[in-house]
């Protein structure tokens, strides 16, 4: 009995790993040969924003003739798992690392580990907490991202304009303590400061997720039935809010503002279910990140801050191809 079980366990595990290995040609090819290897570690893969980023990164890797490993935690909230992934990639001796931090402070220790292993780190999309990074003495090769604060200002300014300075706003925040969401909200608040008629009646985190965007906004609607605008710090939460609006039979009565300009949001804007969003260009981010990572790996100079363009998307330009990747 023991022997049979031992054999079975072994066989099963072997089969499973072999299948996994076969699914991945890089693995089968081994890592010893030729091409330098760089890694992109993202927050999660269940957000189209990061899928677009991955696409841009893959294109850049192809153009620059490097091997690219893309990894992400299952959940955006699981920063410990992201830390593990980075540790493992350090062990795999990748040449350079591009990282979108799941926590601005929490990833600082693992960036320190990459520093010790002499692996250059390019931070993408979400900045490291300046103070935590300085305290720990960690170094990054570059930051690639768009200015989230400015994006928040753009969408806030748009709201002031289209509402003629009168709106009752609910804000759906990202995960508390995330620099990205905090900056967007700050930019938004600063932009509406000049319009006393635009007030924020509720501001609640929905943790970047669609179902939570739905639920949280549904609850806000119960408490504040007079809300006429919702600003979701990412489109995914905004799309959740759109469903909540439909469920409350208030379609068309509430202005939805998003952020990221993912495909579904563009479609919602064309259909008139969403008013506006801010385009970030995650594919350009992914591309710029890999280009910076490869440069850093080769010891070439890399700018400390690489800005990626950002812009307002409304019905006028939602479907226009020039604004798309």
């Amino acid at each position, binding site marked *: *009995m*023991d022997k049979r*079980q031992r054999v*079975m366990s072994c066989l099963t595990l072997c089969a499973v790993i072999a299948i*996994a*290995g076969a699914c991945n040609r890089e693995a089968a090819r081994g890592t010893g040969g030729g091409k330098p290897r760089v890694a992109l570690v993202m927050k999660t893969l269940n957000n189209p924003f990061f899928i677009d980023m991955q696409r841009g990164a893959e294109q850049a890797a192809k153009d620059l003739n490097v091997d690219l490993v893309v990894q992400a935690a299952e959940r955006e909230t699981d920063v410990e798992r992201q830390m593990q992934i980075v540790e493992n990639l350090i*062990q795999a001796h990748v040449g350079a690392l591009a990282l979108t931090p799941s926590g601005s402070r929490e990833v600082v220790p693992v960036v320190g580990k990459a520093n010790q292993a002499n692996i250059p780190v390019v931070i993408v999309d979400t900045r490291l907490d300046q103070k935590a990074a300085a305290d720990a003495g960690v170094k990054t090769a570059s930051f690639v991202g768009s200015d989230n604060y400015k994006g928040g200002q753009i969408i806030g300014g748009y709201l002031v304009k289209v509402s003629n300075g009168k709106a009752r706003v609910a804000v759906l925040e990202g995960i508390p303590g995330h620099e990205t969401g905090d900056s967007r909200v700050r930019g938004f608040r600063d932009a509406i400061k000049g319009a006393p008629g635009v007030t924020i009646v509720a501001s609640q985190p929905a943790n970047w997720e669609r179902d939570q965007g739905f639920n949280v906004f549904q609850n806000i609607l119960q408490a504040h039935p007079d809300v006429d605008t919702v600003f979701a710090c990412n489109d995914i939460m905004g799309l959740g809010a759109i469903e909540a609006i439909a469920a409350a039979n208030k379609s068309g009565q509430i202005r939805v503002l998003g952020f990221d300009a993912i495909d579904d949001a563009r479609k919602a804007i064309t259909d008139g279910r969403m008013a506006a969003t801010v385009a970030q260009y995650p594919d350009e981010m992914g591309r710029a990140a890999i280009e910076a990572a490869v440069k850093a790996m080769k010891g070439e100079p890399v700018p400390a801050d690489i800005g990626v363009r950002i812009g307002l998307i409304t019905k006028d330009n939602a479907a226009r191809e020039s604004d798309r990747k």
Partner: protein
Amino acid sequence: MRGALASGRRLGTLAGLFGLCVLLWALTPHFLTVANLLNVLEQTAINAVIAAGMTFVIVSGGIDLSVGSLVAVAGVVLAAALHRSMPIAVALAASLGVGVGFGLLNGVAITWGRLPPFIATLGMMSIARGCALLFTEGRPVSGFDPAFRSVATAKLAAIPAPVFVTVGVYLLAHFVLSATRFGRYVYSMGGNEEATRLSGVNVRLHKTLVYGVSGLASAVAAVLLTARLNSAQPIAGIMYELDAIAATVIGGTSLMGGEGGLGGTIIGALIMGVLRNGLNLLGVSSFVQQIVIGLVIVVAVLIDTMLKSRKT
């Protein structure tokens, strides 16, 4: 006979772990290095510690779904105490106390309240998460004294401190479960609760303590996690209960209770750690990784049930 079966099963999982290592050694040159193996041990520590507590619960015939949330609440209490410049010992005591306290509440709800463990700890999962969020207003608490962080960052002979913590936890837990009266009661409650009660054991008390042990283990994991990330997040530990249950079950502890032990659980936790590490080293897609891990859990339990049905 139970002993023979248990050790046989443990050999099986050990062989599985060994086979996995051999396979990864063959597939990637980066797996079998001292640095990487230490890296795996360090990464396994948190799940392993939670799973040690989970083993007590599952052997007793219960389940604890609240451990991930207990990690969060114990972590933020620890962080808040440290930020109020309390001595490290006091902060640790507060954190462990909160873990044990919430765990005992689980136990009371299950024994005196007669709630099924699934429901009681499901409720606690939400209550403890809410407490952690309320306590911190949803924001992470970060930045600690290096002296405190040494529990995660220090090394002795190149071995990271969390590994020593894990070994200590397992030695202690193994002693309690296999060599004390309490440990015997845990098995006996899981095997046949009614018979245990009839033989004069205070089942309510001992069952309540079992959930206290699980809360304690979660709090120890919270200390490791907080030190490792240099931050305590109220959203930390989401779904950690599933990893801990998986490690326990892969290690051969039966969900029906009364069987299993910590030797199996540590191997189960290592299998999960090695698997995740190996899949990262190989650069396997994150989507495929989830499928692989799911398959390993299912197959491990499948073997377990097949063995059992053949035995009877």
